[in-house]
């Protein structure tokens, strides 16, 4: 089992979500996040006052998958979230030790 964490542009959320759903992904977590990577914030000046934007608004999607699905999922995210412009984001893969469904106590792939 793996966890995919991906940071994408806000307007790509629907595309990525649909792409993952088409793969059979049953659930995911979406968070509005702010941060910076290569794409930095910037400074604006209006009437002499400076407005520093340190962080860029992005969407973070977290999804835990059976290992067999991971490669396809990564590919889908890459395809759907890509614009070729700066700030397309990143995909992180993390190993998952265990998943437990709180209601039933099921574990492993059955709980994903």
């Amino acid at each position, binding site marked *: 089992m793996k966890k995919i964490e991906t940071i994408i*542009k806000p307007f790509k959320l629907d595309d990525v979500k649909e792409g993952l759903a088409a793969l059979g992904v049953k659930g995911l977590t979406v968070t509005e996040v*702010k941060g910076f990577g290569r794409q*930095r914030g910037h400074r604006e000046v*209006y009437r002499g006052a400076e407005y520093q*934007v340190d962080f860029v608004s992005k969407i973070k999607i977290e999804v835990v998958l059976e290992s067999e699905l991971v490669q396809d999922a990564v590919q889908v995210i890459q395809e759907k979230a890509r614009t*070729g*412009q*700066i700030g397309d984001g990143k995909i992180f893969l993390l190993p998952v030790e265990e998943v437990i469904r709180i209601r039933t106590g099921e574990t492993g792939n059955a709980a994903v």
Partner: protein
Amino acid sequence: MTSPIDELKQSKDHLFSLFSRGEITETFQGDYTEIMDHYFRRSLQENAAGESLFAKKHPFALVALGGYGRKELCYHSDIDIMVLFKNGIPSEAADLAEKMFFPLWDIGLELGHATRNIRDCLTLSKQDFQVFTSLLDARFIGGDSPLYLNLVETFQKKLICKKPGNFWQWLKEMTESRTEVFGDASYLLEPNLKEGIGGLRDYHHILWLARVFFNARVPRDLEYLGLLTHAEYLGLEKQLRMIWLTRNHLHSLAGRKNDRLIFEYQDRIALHLGYRNKPGFPAVEQFLGDLHAAMAAVKSLYRSFVITHLPETKQPRKPEADTLSDSPDFRIEHGQIGFKTATDILSRPVLLMNIFEKSSQFGIPLSLESKRLVKEFLYLADDAFRSSKEVVRIFLDIINHPRAFDILDQMFETGLLETFVPEYKGIKDRIQFDTYHVFPIGRHALKTLQYLKTLSLEKDFLFVDILADLPNPEPLFLAALFHDIGKRGKDHALRGAAITAQILKRFYYDRDLQKDVLFLIHHHLLLAETATRRDLNDEKSVVQCARAIGDIHRLKMLYLLTWADSMATGPKAWNEWTANLVRELFFKVLHILEKGKLATPLAQKKVKEKLSRVRRLVGEMNHPHHDLDRLFEAMAPRYLLETPVQAIVRHLEILQDLGASFNNPENTNFCLQTNKNQAEGSWEITLMAKDRPGLFSDIAGILALNNINILSAYIYTWRDGTAVDIFRVTDPLDLIHPEDIWKRVEKDMAGIFAGDFDLPERLANKTRSSILGRQKPHSRAPKARFDNDSSDFFTIVEVFADDRVGLLYDITQTLFRNDINITIAKISTKADQIADIFYVHDLEGQKIEGKDRMESIKKNLLRVIQTHPAH
């Protein structure tokens, strides 16, 4: 015979089932109270302890308190009761209570009971106003009635008449804390029916105050004592029926005492109350609209009751009264404004609007009486009134006034706003049934305006500065007020603009300003939607947004409206995350509009015309329509603006020839087209291929290799990665067989694409022997400049230098080697000078940042320009 408790249980179950079947509705509280009274009386009769108490000369009375005392028992209300003794409390009292009260707990009733003597009642009431109010509601049920009367008299003499001011102060504090905790129920989406402002508590306050200050004993006294008019009393009864009925259903569904009308029950209650879905207007929204209207009416009645009948601590400021003293129409009394003579309204209906203007000027509310008069004379506000120049002028003055919110609030309350703008009818109290919108539409519109009016209190100076920059914010205020007026189903922004157009036409509103208002309403979602649904790093998305806006003042107003609208929608609509995105968009659009060119109305018109001509011409080709839309979408904004129609059509043809596989990133197809321009004695070369870093440099190099001198060049990269490079070049050296040279150029290009052509080596060989490559003395020092300010999307590199063969290749090659990707280029040559402008990114697609980096590239550029040749 059944025991009292069994009888109670049966009657109660029967009543409850009648209610759930809808056979009993409005009489429920009274019926339930009667059933309880009956239980207590029977229980008292059959209670041995009771008899023995009377026998031992310990008379007592059963007294209902609080809501039970007011006969307002709802489905799961608490039942508060007191056993009252004269002096001491005998030990049998415990036995009495046990027999009478314990069975009630057993059947699950929430019972609050106390055993007190008269002195206890007074002491506790002095300490705690809660006890005081519960005793205000006291009602005799059974036992010794003289004892009860004794309590009432003592209470009246020793407490009520003593310090009514303290009680009034306490109620004011209660209202404040209720506002804080429960909010204004008359527009919250999940109102608290009891404690919310506009809830039952407001009505209780009226009752208590009437009792304390005017000795009103029963609700009907409100009217008999002249505290409320007949119409107001009837209205109040009606509103209370609605709230009580809702509350009973809520308790019944929730299975417990719960006064917050939470989301999950609203649908079912709406159906219980007989609301049915209509197209575009769900039952639940109709229900909430009516409920809010009822609670708003209770709220307003309480306010005006307080203002009219209670001693006000704050006296009106003298100067204001003086200012009005010479006004023939209005006067100020108790810090409120009123009409001098009501009959004047008949001859001059404009006074109906006028009084609100005065109210805004002096910052004091209308008196209850004048509100009554406005309501009464609303019928005078006819079509002539609605389009009267004077009335409209006054209305606009009110809108522009800093206190506009309070004034419009009063206009809403009296119904004048709806009468003056009938388009608001049926939509004012309309609720949007989701967790996102917290307020109904009319309230939301006012709130939006309020946010704009109180902008100066915001921490964000940017908004304050922007508002200060507007030459005339009136269109913004009007748009705030009307932006959701078309909210019935889809496309509400467009419909809202159309409805507002009618309103403004009726106002004879200034044409240009009208356009601004309509634009703002039509596009009030544009910024928020673009910011969250489009790529802000993509110039075209932003340019499209800028084109839709087209004007800096409009952009500023739209930004403020977006913010105020979102703030007034609810806590979920605006947060730092969204604010961040919208601000980024605002600045990018602002910069594009300030630079002009890409987004001027003229540019927009030009591009639109171009596209429709291209579409017509392409009609004969085999492009399916949707494909064409996709391609238009892909074309860079500057390309669309600068390329003639014929050329665009030709490029589309080339694209089709390149075939479907062209979109494959590994594709190495390219197309080279040459056309002779007879008039100018020059050639135009068009190259189309998949873009990659260094592509432009390669072509420049091959042209130099073949002794083709570049006069000017435009290179564009579409959003789908298609590179379109257009060169105007001098005649080839071989004027007789130019096609041979073009063939060679094409062959060399193919070699480059295939990866087996060593361009640097070939160029080096060539320049050694070329006469054109001979170095001339520099007439002017070359210049290179990096500009990061002019565009939010690109770094612009400008190079000026003396021309020579291969120079463009050297420059572009240097950029390529420094990891710079050219997206757009404009190359021009005048006499022997070149002026090249490159719109570039680094390989990440980002602007070139960092002083050191720019300096080093600049140095490389200048060196390669001067040291010839660089290979």
